[in-house]
């Protein structure tokens, strides 16, 4: 139970959406810039604008979150189409933090490219889409916001339009995405067919009692599975994950960071909300036991992601697969909502993991961006002896890798073990065991990066670093991400409390 404290309110209500609005405004501002002066080449100004936009949104989201705005049932807006509650703000914080880092890191990465304004406006538009997803409380807004995230993402992946890899990645991402959104839309139509509504709370209301499901259980089940497919696409979960390794590898590294951290989190926030709020497991378990579904998906996803990651030669692709693996971990957040134990622990753990993941994974991809910037190569061997040239960045990368692997050098340690604890508490200890095996395997391949950087001898390909120098923006982004990752170990309490509260709030909304 959330203590009935005086929660601060905003007047008017829609101010609660400030983070999303800020992002949208800045995105459009950049859009306008782009339209007025397409040849504007003041990269710093554009990047600064985008960074300021996302940072300010992050600050607002963080302040709202800590002030407790929307604690409890949240601020419901526009007839229930949107809700700004703890979970929404928490995820907005994740999205905007990642976006800030990505914008900061892109300054150097995009050096010499055309259409910088377009890039930043797409990043901010996609972030806006995510923020809207976090606040969406209706399948309609979810679908539309999800597309607001997807379409700019396709463009971002293909941003290096003269680079075969980037274009191919964009093409694959787009095609799989289009297929997925068709499936998603079809699923929504079936849900609508069964319940007659798109609002999550009304869907749940229609399901209550279970009369509808006796007649229309099959249709509902197909709908739920298809909706789950849509989320699986966004979160890069099996079997809709196929785009992920390619897209993350081919895309510009900051975009990979953005997609694998923020976009994944966006997929999860809607999945959390839809399944918990709209399809309460008590009502639907007889028809479609989505907890079981997510257990299956979690096991397959984490196993596939981690095992495939273990045999990669390319660091970026390894990170891509590991990102699939992490999707599997977070799926535990849904898979362990068995009604046993403390649901808020496992759901909150999933949220916290996504938060920490936002920093550590973004940081890792930005480090890859740094290496791509230097042009020393992409395989593990190419990373050999990197620490001799760039010790600070390598310390940061080590922090990311070990934190991703769940060693206590960053917040990833706590969040991963929170997840495991939650799984055990829910009685799905076997799921925890599978996660444990995967986690140990992940330590193997993450430490390969560390080994290359610190233990191996340099290959002689590092001279290029001297040529290109040390880019300030990327360095700053990487170091900030590392500091955040490390600080989140002792200071996770700042966010874990609100995460657990938000989780229990969402869980208690369910009838």
């Amino acid at each position: 139970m959330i203590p009935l404290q005086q929660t601060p309110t905003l007047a008017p209500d829609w101010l609660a959406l400030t983070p999303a609005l800020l992002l949208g405004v800045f995105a459009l501002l950049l859009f306008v810039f782009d339209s007025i002066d397409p040849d504007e080449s003041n990269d710093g100004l554009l990047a600064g604008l985008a960074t300021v936009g996302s940072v300010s949104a992050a600050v607002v989201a963080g302040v709202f979150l800590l002030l407790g705005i929307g604690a409890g049932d949240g601020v419901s807006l526009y007839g229930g189409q949107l809700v700004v509650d703890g979970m929404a703000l928490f995820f907005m914080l994740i999205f905007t933090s990642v976006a800030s880092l990505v914008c900061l890191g892109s300054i150097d990465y995009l050096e010499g490219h055309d259409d910088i304004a377009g890039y930043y406006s797409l990043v901010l538009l996609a972030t806006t889409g995510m923020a809207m997803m976090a606040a969406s409380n209706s399948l309609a807004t979810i679908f539309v916001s999800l597309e607001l995230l997807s379409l700019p993402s396709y463009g971002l992946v293909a941003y290096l339009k003269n680079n075969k890899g980037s274009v191919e990645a964009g093409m694959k991402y787009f095609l799989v995405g289009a297929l997925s959104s068709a499936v998603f839309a079809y699923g929504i139509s079936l849900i609508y067919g069964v319940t007659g509504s798109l609002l999550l709370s009304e869907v749940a209301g229609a399901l209550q009692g279970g009369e509808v499901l006796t007649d229309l259980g099959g249709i509902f089940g197909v709908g739920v599975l298809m909706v789950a497919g849509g989320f699986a696409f966004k979160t890069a979960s099996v079997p809709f994950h196929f785009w992920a390794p390619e897209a993350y590898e081919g895309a510009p590294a900051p975009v990979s960071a953005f997609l694998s951290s923020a976009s994944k989190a966006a997929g999860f926030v809607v999945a959390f909300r839809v399944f918990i709020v709209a399809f309460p497991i008590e009502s639907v378990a007889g028809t479609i036991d989505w907890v079981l579904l997510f257990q299956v998906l979690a096991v397959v996803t984490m196993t596939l992601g981690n095992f495939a990651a273990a045999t990669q030669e390319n660091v970026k692709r390894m990170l891509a697969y590991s990102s699939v693996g992490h999707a599997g971990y977070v799926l535990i957040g849904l898979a362990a909502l068995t009604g046993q134990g403390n649901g808020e622990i496992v759901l909150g753990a999933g949220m916290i993991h996504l938060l920490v993941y936002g920093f550590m994974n973004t940081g890792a991809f930005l480090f890859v961006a740094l290496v791509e910037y230097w042009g020393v190569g992409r395989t593990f061997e190419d990373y050999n002896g990197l620490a001799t040239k760039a010790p600070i960045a390598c310390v940061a990368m080590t922090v990311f890798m070990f934190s991703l692997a769940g060693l206590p050098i960053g917040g990833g340690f706590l969040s991963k073990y929170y997840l495991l604890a939650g799984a055990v508490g829910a009685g799905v200890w076997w799921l925890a065991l599978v996660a444990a095996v995967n986690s140990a395997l992940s330590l193997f391949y993450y430490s390969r990066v560390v080994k290359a950087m610190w233990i191996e001898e340099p290959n002689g390909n590092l001279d290029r670093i001297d040529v290109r120098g040390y880019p300030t923006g990327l360095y700053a982004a990487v170091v900030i991400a590392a500091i955040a990752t490390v600080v989140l170990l002792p200071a996770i309490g700042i966010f874990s409390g609100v995460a657990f509260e938000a989780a229990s709030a969402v869980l208690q909304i369910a009838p």
Partner: protein
Amino acid sequence: MAAESGVFTFAPAIAVLPFVSFLVALFAGKYMPKKGAVAGIAATAGSLLLSLVMLAQVASGHAHHMELYTWVGGEGVPFELTFGILLDQLSTLMLVIVSTIAFLVHVFSLGYMNDEGETGLPRYYAELGLFSASMLAFVFSDNVLMAFMFFELVGLCSYLLIGFWFRRPGPASAAKKAFLVTRFGDYFFLIGVVGIFATFGTGTFGGPGVEESFPELAEAAIAGGASVNTFFGLSPRAWFGVLGLLVLGGVMGKSAQFPFHTWLPDAMEGPTPVSALIHAATMVAAGVYLVARMYGFYALLPTVLAVIAFVGGFTALFAATMGVVKDEIKQVLAYSTISQYGYIMLALGGGGYVAGVFHLTTHAVFKALLFLGAGSVIIAMHHNENMWDMGGLKDRMPVTYYAFLSGSLALAGIVPFSGFWSKDEVLYETLVHGLGGSPLLLAAYAMGLLAVFFTGFYTFRMVLLTFHGEPRTDLAEDPEPVRWNVKIPLAILGVLAAVIGVINLVPVHALESSVPEFLHDWLYHGPEGLNGEHYHELITSPEFAGYSAGAIPGLGELGTLFASAGLSLAVALAGSAVALALYRAPAPEEHTAKLGSLKTLLYENYYQDEYQVWLAQDLTEETVAKNAKRFDDGVVDGFVDRVSDVSLVSGHFLRRVQTGIVSNYAALITLGLVVLLVAFGIVGGWFGGVFA
């Protein structure tokens, strides 16, 4: 009390003094004139003096016990483990023996080591000092744990001193073997110690002022007067028997009893003074001393006593036969040592507590003498130990010869040298108790008696080959002279070997009771529970060992005594006579060939080393350990590596699913969706009961 404990407060110094000499020699030895020898001599002289003082104190009727300090204690543990000193008749006697020999060996070492220009002398004297300290501490230990600890420490010193010449492969190997074989025995001993503490909650031997000692508790338990923890549902008597046998493991290891005797001949690789001190007079005696120390416990257990006696008798004979064919002087002495400790075991097992201690005393003297004499010869022969290269040394080194002869006569058991008296008593005690109704003891006696023959033979073979006849090499023609520091110890010991028997002239006492049996009286007046009288009661009590003294039919007690003495003397003389007959010649021949295949068997020591080496090396190390290693590398670790291989291979397979062709992805997505739909459809009953 205050006055006497005033003297006794110096008791720890008996061990501490040599320990200090160890430290001095170790850290400052190389700066000292005699490389630490002076410190050692001073320390052991001090120990000897103090031991004598203690002996005198005890003689005045004041056995003493004191707790030194608590090793482990306090509220947290169920029983304390302490260090303490027990000064009674037995231990003070042994202290005097040990410190005497140690002192003399230190002096002798000046000649054997310093004068020979050996390097590493500080190490030598340090180790010698540590040994003396440990041995003395072992002797005055008041409980079995402390005894075990110093028992192990003397083992360490033995290892170090055998391996003193570590540059040569032989000593290094012999040292290892000595430690390992005794360690194997100590394994059982340690179980026994642990068992004693677990059973009784105390390991004290007893003594004045000691409330509880385990022999007393055991006695009470068998008598039904106390309850103790026995294990495995055994009766107290049976369980104590197990404990006794376990402790016996250590005894047999240290005292080189069959089948743990194999290390001792090898240990002759060490410097000869070391052989004299450690491997003849003192450390090897530690085993049998331990039996004597806890005789109150063994006397309760007839089975164990029989085992002790039989092992002793067998070892006495077995080792003596091997001594017959040896070519090297120290080898003969080594087998002789094994054989003689067999006698002591025989005595203790046969109920002859006093006899055992008596032979322990005399043997310490004459065997130390023989070793030192051999050392003198070895100096003279430039470290050639082969007796066939000697001959005729009698005239060139008379002091050594006469001293050696005195020791040899004692060893052979020729009246009136000390060995006669003690060996005779050993055999007599065994005989009477055997006649009292124990065929096993009689068998042991028979073996002991037979061994007397071989003892006489190999002793005089050794003397004759070494000192008599014509010199067989140039070296023997002109041996290196030895100095006072060799001669004085030999002289002292030579005299002692001849006369020390007076301390217990049993047959004489039987004839003329005014001739005292000093040792008998001495030991019978020990503190309560630790004296010979008490032991005798236990031995003869039907509730415990249940021995009874018998006599040769028709001869009576006195007749049996003299018959036994006469018999053993006759056998000894017979053995000596055969040796004289064979080797008296100026240029004696090797007669071993006449033994035929027996010769090989004896030369190879009954293949005892072979099977033990096979056990330790071929079986344990080469077979078991190597296979364990193979198993561990291949199976246990192999499993770990396979797991990692399988993970990587399956990872390789999984990544192949990602073909790079987007159509395939669409197909796989569709496939996944269809599979999920069908699976959950069936579970959820979506198909209108079609599959239900």
